[in-house]
């Protein structure tokens, strides 16, 4: 990893049995885990493009490295969304795409509609992926589809299926492991 920042908090939290002392790198890793997806979703509402949203969020996480982990940790979510928003607006300003958000602005958006060829290829890909998922044991396939097709959290999958959250986590873990072992290279 190189000489990543090793800013260690000296706050009173050091003696809190419930919280470990985190380095900046650990904080960033945890932030990626918990906030990567919601941040990208949020950035996308501003920059209106998934690739740009990913860039913005990448930049946000990089900036998190510059912070004192002890000071940011408690207000991590607020910090992340604030910085993400500012970076996204910077991107828009530089691209001169910051316009009044009225109904008409939607006209300026690239619809992003897939061509018929792309749409057909997408459908084929979906069918192919689902065919591999269907080879899993039913309970693993069910939770994986609820997670990745429907976007359910572990908690929601638990509520939907009646399984405990621990059970859901285990099934997704083993299901994905098995799926990786049977997927062809072009899908990995």
């Amino acid at each position: 990893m190189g000489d990543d920042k090793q800013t260690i908090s000296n706050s009173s939290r050091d003696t809190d049995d419930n919280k470990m002392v985190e380095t900046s790198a650990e904080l960033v890793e945890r932030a990626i885990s918990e906030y990567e997806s919601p941040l990208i979703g949020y950035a996308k509402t501003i920059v209106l493009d998934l690739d740009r949203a990913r860039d913005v969020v990448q930049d946000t996480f990089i900036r998190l490295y510059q912070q004192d982990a002890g000071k940011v940790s408690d207000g991590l979510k607020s910090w992340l969304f604030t910085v993400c928003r500012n970076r996204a607006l910077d991107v828009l300003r530089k691209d001169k795409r910051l316009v009044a958000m009225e109904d008409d602005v939607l006209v300026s958006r690239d619809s992003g509609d897939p061509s018929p060829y792309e749409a057909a290829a997408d459908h084929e890909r979906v069918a192919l992926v689902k065919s591999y998922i269907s080879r899993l044991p039913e309970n693993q396939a069910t939770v994986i589809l609820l997670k990745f097709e429907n976007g359910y959290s572990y908690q929601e999958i638990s509520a939907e299926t009646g399984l405990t959250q621990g059970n859901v986590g285990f099934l997704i873990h083993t299901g994905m492991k098995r799926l990786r072992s049977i997927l062809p290279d072009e899908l990995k």
Partner: protein
Amino acid sequence: MKIDINDPRITAFALGELQGRDAQEIARAVQTDTRIRAAVDEVRDTSFMLFDSLSGGGANLLTTDQRKSVRSAGCGAVIEDLASARVALWKKPMVAGIGVAAAVAISLFFIQDRKSGAGTTGMAANDSTDINAGWDWSQVETEDLTASAIVPVSGTGLTESEAAHALAAAISDDTQSFRGEVAKRISQSELNDAHQLPGLIANDWLDVSSDRAYQVPLSSGSASWPWIERYLTEKNVLPPVQTIRIEEMINHFQYSTPSQLTGTELVADMEICHSPWRPDHLLLAVHVAARPGVDYARASASLEVNQERIQKLRLLGYANLAHGNPSKGEPMAGRSLQQISKTHGNYVIYELEPVMAVQGDSVIATLVLGDGTRMSLNQSVAWEGIASPDLRFASTVAATGMLISGQDSSHMVTAEKLLSMLEVIEKGIPASLNKRRKALTIMKKCASIFAANTGK
């Protein structure tokens, strides 16, 4: 402590499902154990592919290269000008040698707390030229977050707040997270807060005109069912009527993906059955959903009703907010949240009063999507046995709302009728649909408490 490479927490961490000390432990292991880091990355790569393939909108995840760039950027300077460095950023993670030194200025903006006027740490309101972009909806006050989604009545002068625009975006693009946040806020609220909600005026019957298209609502809020559950489970009483929004109750649940009608932006189903609580009436259900992978921002749907067969129509739910909030003495701003969710369809039910003298097989209603794609129905089916399980379930949820809210001016929905409907749908719910089974218990409780309170 060494983490087992087969620890399911690794997958949970990679999927953002791990919290607290567990998350910190795995985050530390990722930094110190290359096996764990490789395992986490492997899960993320697979989840990227699965989300990208199955969710239809692309994976809201960083690419592998971007993650590596973040990890290796810990010792590098920050690129200030992201837009101009866009192509190069992940190719040049070690930016120290470029000479771009960035002083990261973190500014916390403050929004006005409407109640106290004091500043509150949160997201700033935008420039007047950018009223929708940039709102962190999770910072929106609970009152706005749990607002209903209604079509503002033209001519009333109702306006849409900036928060409403942010909520529209949240409901559309981040539905699961939004619903989770709403449920969390309600679980953390004082129960009596529900009494502060504005009153609701149920939609009145409309005289049908064949010349008119009735706009189909494309979204709904999600606060109602959590309130109902809380009151029933914590206090064993019915919730205040202000919390009972029928469209939110119906759309708390998921329904089968529509497939009868495919438009450019939407897919849709339509179904007509006899009303279970009033045999001379009909129920018309419309279920719309965004087509995966297309731009659905301007999607719309409308209903054309044949006045030769139907004389009156009313939309169940979407009650207009009462003008003026009794508790605050203020006029309420209406909200129009007409952008469909990327992941959750919207299920809408109308009650129709037929023209009694007319029989025959002329069209009853036509569903028209924004691109002109249309389908018509000229027959209704029996509610029991023939109508779809989704319609039976959704109409039972609607009936529950009508019963306990008093939004059934004809008083045709009684506790006894509701219990008989519940008995029918209970037989048809698969064991795997735990959420629906749990809902049955809630609805039975509503019927029982209502009957005990009113003797009806």
